[in-house]
């Protein structure tokens, strides 16, 4: 069965610093992979997705993610974090349905 692991429960980063969130998946075939962001009191918003092709995908809000089949990873990155990026981030894998990781909470300090 498909599954997703997000090893980091909570990350604190300074404003302007770079951010990387880890995601490891377990899936037998070529995965469809996603990153969602959830701000407090809000629903989930799709940041980016990977279906096939170029392994480096660009998303909204300056985020990017890199698919590495050899490592079963789909890590999310942002070069320079803004205070508004404080939120919870979920990685997800799909075959016939989405399976989400437990999420990583990002705190941005001034």
């Amino acid at each position, binding site marked *: 069965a498909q599954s*997703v692991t997000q090893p980091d429960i909570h990350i604190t980063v300074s404003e302007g610093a770079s951010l990387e969130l880890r995601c490891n998946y377990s899936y037998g075939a070529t995965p*469809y992979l*996603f990153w969602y962001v959830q701000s407090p009191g*809000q*629903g989930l918003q799709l940041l980016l997705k990977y*279906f096939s092709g170029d392994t480096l995908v660009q998303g909204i809000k300056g985020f990017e993610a890199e698919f590495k089949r050899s490592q079963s990873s789909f890590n999310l990155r942002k070069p320079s974090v803004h205070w508004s990026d404080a939120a919870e981030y979920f990685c997800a894998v799909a075959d016939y349905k989405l399976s*989400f990781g437990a*999420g990583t909470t990002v705190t941005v300090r001034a």
Partner: protein
Amino acid sequence: EAGVAQSPRYKIIEKRQSVAFWCNPISGHATLYWYQQILGQGPKLLIQFQNNGVVDDSQLPKDRFSAERLKGVDSTLKIQPAKLEDSAVYLCASSSPGQAAYEQYFGPGTRLTVT
């Protein structure tokens, strides 16, 4: 384009009471999903509708949870009777058919507290 609408946003009930949540998906989206998100966890799919038919309800606790999507548009999720462990955020999402089905658009959720 209007997003996914949900109501109420918050609900507090006592255990053994009943509660209902409403969802209006994005216009034209044939697929509708209900998720349960317990604090500290990712969303878990409860039920998926394609138009007004159920595609997957394998994770729905059918002894107490029910859902319907009359006319293939709005949907209602009901819990009767509620238990303490039902305290969670209930998210509704919708999507278009085909590959775009994976691009789900989420509503703001209903936060349920069972006391």
